[in-house]
Each structure stands twice: as structure tokens, then as C-alpha cells.
């Protein structure tokens, strides 16, 4: 087991190297540079700027300079946001994005697992069909539709609930006030909930058909014990391997959600960076998230082995 973890951790390095190389050269293929402005700068100033950022050196040298910085955990200065390093920008946006992402993930797990289990227990009933239609809606309706609709209903019109008028802010961060978090998290959680519900329903249906569940029934165990203790743990196994892709879905969602709700997270920096040719910022964000996904996949593999005694790593 230890040697498996060790080997997998070593395997992360070449994977990251390929990703860094690929993104580095891809980014440089782009026409236009980070310091192109409407106003033409005098050539000597252009030269000075280029020299300051090593942009006058041949591309392969820039690549090695970048790699050298990277192994010292330095993602370099941002080209466009003056006086900020990429690490500082990411550190600024990350707590915001992480809060949204974790909140959405938690909600998606709670609702997704309960809805999926419910649908599987009442297979082919009205409850099953409504859960599955909801899931299909959650997957097919893009977040840039749900976001404005929720904003209109809960923010602009306001909703009466138990005699209280509820009106939620439709944008801004406000230092992470709970009211500002509700709508963005709901929008992010919707597709994720739908996917989790579908996954859990599928595996739950299969587990409920297996022999040991029949044995448990034959022993006369009460239904809730059968479901909670015998059926649920193995039915949740596929969720573990969904960890990596789930994170990727959250990222895509957060690009849109952060834009719509004007939330200062990492996603917003990325899009601004890509449009402004801020090479180091874009590279930094891609590398940061790629590392995260790789590590998540590793954790998922280990968790899988820990949870399923049939899986052995050598």
C-alpha cells in the first residue's frame, strides 16, 4: 500500500511536466502579447518591459526559466495586474471559490444521495420518475439560465415564506455573508445534485438486487437498517471515483457563476487572464487546478481501496 502511494505520487511529476509544457507552448502560440495596448509604446520602453519579464529571450529559455521558478513554488508575477504575483492572486481568489465549491458539493451530496436512494427504493414509481426528470433538467439547463431566473424570483420579486419576506442579494461578495452565498451555491449545486442522484440511483438499484440484500430481508431486518447499513455503503462507491470529474464540473460552473454574481474568485481571474494574454496568470491557474485534480484522483483511488475490500493495490 505504501509503495503504491509512493509510486503514484512519483507519477504525478511527469504528468504535471507534460501539462506545464503543453499549456506553456499553447499559450505562446496565441497572437498578441500581454503588453499590447491601444497606445503604441516607444520601442525602448517596449524593449525594457520585455527584458524585465524575460520576454526577449528565446522561447525555450523562457520555458526553462519558468520551470526553474515552478520547482521553487513560484508561479511568477502577473503580467497585467501590476505588483501582484500569480500566487497572490490565486491566494486571494481561492478562499472565495473554495467556499462556493465546498458549499455546493455538500448540498449536492446530501440531496443527491437522498434523492437517488429514494428513486431506487421506489423504482418505476411516480417518485422515481419525478426525481429522474428533475435530474435530467438539472443536467440539461445551463447555469446561466438558472442563475438569472433564481435572481429574478428570489432577488427582484422576493418570495413570501412563513410570513417573512425573503429577498436575497443578487450579486457581490460582501465578505462572504450567508445571504450572498445562497443563490450562487444553489446554482452551482443544481447540476451536481442531478449527476449525484443519477449515479446513486443506478448503483442502488443494482445493489438492491444482490443476494446479500435478499439474505438481509430473509433474516427479517427492518427496511431502514437494510438500506442504511447494508445497501448504502456499497452503493456510494461509484461516487468516490466521481470525485475528480465532480470537481471539474464545479470549475466549469464556477466560471459562469462567478461572472454572473460578480464574485471575486479564481474563475474570474482566469477568464480575464485568458482574454488579456496574461500568460503567467493563466498558466498558474491551469497548473494549480490540474495538480488539484491529479491529487483528487489519487485520493479517490486510495479511498476506493479502503472502502472496497475486493480492491487491492500492490
Amino acid at each position, binding site marked *: 500500500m505504501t509503495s503504491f502511494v509512493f509510486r503514484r505520487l512519483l507519477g504525478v511529476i511527469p504528468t504535471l511536466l507534460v501539462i506545464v509544457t503543453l499549456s506553456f507552448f499553447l499559450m505562446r502560440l496565441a497572437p498578441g502579447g500581454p503588453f499590447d495596448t491601444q497606445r503604441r509604446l516607444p520601442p525602448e520602453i517596449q524593449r525594457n518591459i520585455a527584458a524585465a519579464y524575460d520576454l526577449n529571450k528565446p522561447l525555450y529559455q523562457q520555458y526553462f526559466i519558468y520551470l526553474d521558478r515552478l520547482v521553487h513554488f513560484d508561479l511568477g508575477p502577473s503580467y497585467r495586474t501590476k505588483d501582484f504575483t500569480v500566487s497572490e492572486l490565486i491566494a486571494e481568489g481561492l478562499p472565495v471559490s473554495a467556499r462556493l465549491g465546498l458549499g455546493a458539493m455538500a448540498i449536492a451530496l446530501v440531496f443527491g444521495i437522498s434523492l437517488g436512494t429514494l428513486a431506487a427504493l421506489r423504482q418505476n414509481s411516480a417518485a422515481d420518475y419525478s426525481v429522474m426528470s428533475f435530474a*435530467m433538467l438539472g443536467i*440539461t439547463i445551463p447555469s446561466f*439560465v438558472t442563475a*438569472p431566473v433564481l435572481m429574478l424570483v428570489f432577488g427582484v420579486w422576493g418570495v413570501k415564506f412563513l410570513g417573512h419576506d425573503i429577498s436575497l442579494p443578487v450579486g457581490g461578495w460582501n465578505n462572504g455573508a450567508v445571504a450572498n452565498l445562497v443563490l450562487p451555491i444553489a446554482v452551482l449545486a443544481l447540476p451536481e445534485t442531478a449527476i449525484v442522484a443519477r449515479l446513486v440511483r443506478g448503483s442502488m438499484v443494482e445493489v438492491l438486487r444482490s443476494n446479500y440484500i435478499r439474505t438481509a430481508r430473509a433474516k427479517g431486518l427492518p427496511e431502514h437498517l437494510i438500506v442504511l447499513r447494508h445497501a448504502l455503503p456499497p452503493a456510494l462507491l461509484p461516487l468516490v471515483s466521481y470525485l475528480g470529474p465532480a470537481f471539474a464540473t464545479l470549475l466549469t460552473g464556477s466560471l459562469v457563476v462567478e461572472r454572473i454574481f460578480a464574485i471575486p474568485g479564481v474563475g474570474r481571474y482566469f477568464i480575464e487572464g485568458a*482574454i488579456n494574454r496574461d500568460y503567467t496568470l493563466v498558466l498558474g491557474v491551469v497548473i494549480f487546478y490540474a495538480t488539484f485534480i491529479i491529487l483528487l484522483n489519487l485520493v479517490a483511488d486510495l479511498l476506493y481501496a479502503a472502502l472496497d475490500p475486493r480492491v487491492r493495490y500492490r
Partner: protein
Amino acid sequence: MTGGASADTALDRAFDVPGRSLWADARRRLVGNKAAVIGMAVLACVTLTAILAPLLSPYPYDATDYGLISCAPDWWPGSGAMCRAGGEHWFGTDAVGRDLFVRVLYGARVSLAVGLVASLVSLILGVGYGALAGFVGPRLDELMMRFVDVLYSLPYIFLVIVLMVIFNRNFYLMFVAIGAVEWLTMARIVRGETLSIRQKEFIEAARAAGVGPFSTILRHIVPNVVSPVVVYVTLTVPNVILAESFLSFLGLGIQEPLTSWGVLISQGADQMESAPWLLMFPTLFMAATLFSFNFIGDGLRDALDPKDR
């Protein structure tokens, strides 16, 4: 002699009972699946109107009419709307007075084209790469699949955004960019299938008969991976349409005056309160299409899954 002849015809008659091939079986199951059939009907309607858009349109798709800005269709209930579009503007008009019905149809052309072409790109890349990796033997296979693993850990939407920025929102390259990211899963599926197929006797027979590796892949392996591939392609198309709409929303998709469902929806969302039809119609069309693809995909999977037989 005569007896022998009659026995022959009896035998012939017995063989005349049409056999049920895998595909005939699958077709029967698919036709029995209500959701899939409705999906196919809806999809056929949307596709047909998209193809015939130039014939069906009472107005050019880019003709502006500043007298009719964000006007509701005549049949729109309620009196909240600022003005009525009247005439043949069945879905009302948009913020610069263009006919929404025509724009939704033209948006369908773009969205469907992106969905189909990008899926085709991912199909060709994925099947080719996967079949090759599965067929060439363990060492090269390991290397090729490691490469797929690496690309898997790239945050995919980021890659597409970078590609779009690089190619300066080139419309045709958007197909390629999205397709180039969607082929990974296809490659994995095909490789897995190929690994099991290449152990079969008919591959050995082909090799004994002197068939070269490339014709073996094309003639003997690819036809046998068709069923999982068909299912996956049907589920890729809606993903690609969604991806395109995300890009359009972020301002990296197709450019005016051409349009896609994603562009229409994001424009409609801006005016949701004053002109809800601008959000409603494109969303309805897109959701119906994505629903149909998903239902057809699920139906195909059930129809082709040998486990259920």
C-alpha cells in the same frame, strides 16, 4: 428423389423465417421505448426546421427594425409588454428588433452543427486512437493511455478557453477545439473493447489469413465496437452543445450577427424581466433538444446492452 426435393424446400422454408440480427433486435427495443421515440420525433422536427430555416423565415436573420425593439409576440398573455411585434413575428423581436423566431432557427443551425461536427471529430479521434492503443500491444498501449490520463487531468473548459483565445474565436476551429477535448472518454471506451476483442478467434483467423494490422483494425475491430460508441456519441452531442453555449455566454463563442442558442439565451437573460420571451424560446428549444439526445442515448444503451437480453 422427389422426397429429397420436398425435404429441401421444407428446409428452405424453415430458413426463410427471417432471423433477428443484433441490430433488428435493438431497433425493436428502441421503438418500444416511448421516451426515445418522442426524443427522435422532437429532434427530427428541430433538425428539419433548422435545415429549412431559410425557407421558413419570413424575415432575414440579421434584419433590424428599430420600430420594434424587444416587442412581445401578439399572442403573449398579460399587458406588461411594452409593445406588440405584430405581423409574422411569431416569437416577438429582440433588443435590436430582429425576429426571434428566425434567430432561434438560425441559432439551431449553429448549435446543432457544432454539436454534430465536434462529436464527429471526437468520434474519429477517439475510435482511431483507442483502437490503435488496444491493438498495438501492451507497451505502446501503456504509453498512449498515459497520455490520455494526462489530458484528463487538464481542466477541460480551461483548455477550450485557451484554444478559443489563441485561434481568435475562429468559428470552425471551435468545432475542432471542443471535439479535441471530448475524444478522451471515447478513446478509453474503444481501447477497453478492443483489448477484449483482439483475444477472439476471428482476429487470429484474420492474422492467419495474412490481413495487415490496419485492415484488421478497420475491418474487424471497429465494426465490433460500434454499439458502445453509438451510445456515447449520442450523449456527447448534448455535452458539446452545452459547452458551446458556455463559451458563447463567456463571450468566446460565435460572433454577431450569426448566433447560437447559447448567445440567444445569454442575451435573453439580460432582459429577462422586461422581455421574458427572449429567454424562454431559445431555452425551450435548447432544453428540448438536449432532453431528446439524452433520452435517445439512454434508449440506445438499453437497446444495445447485451446484459439485458
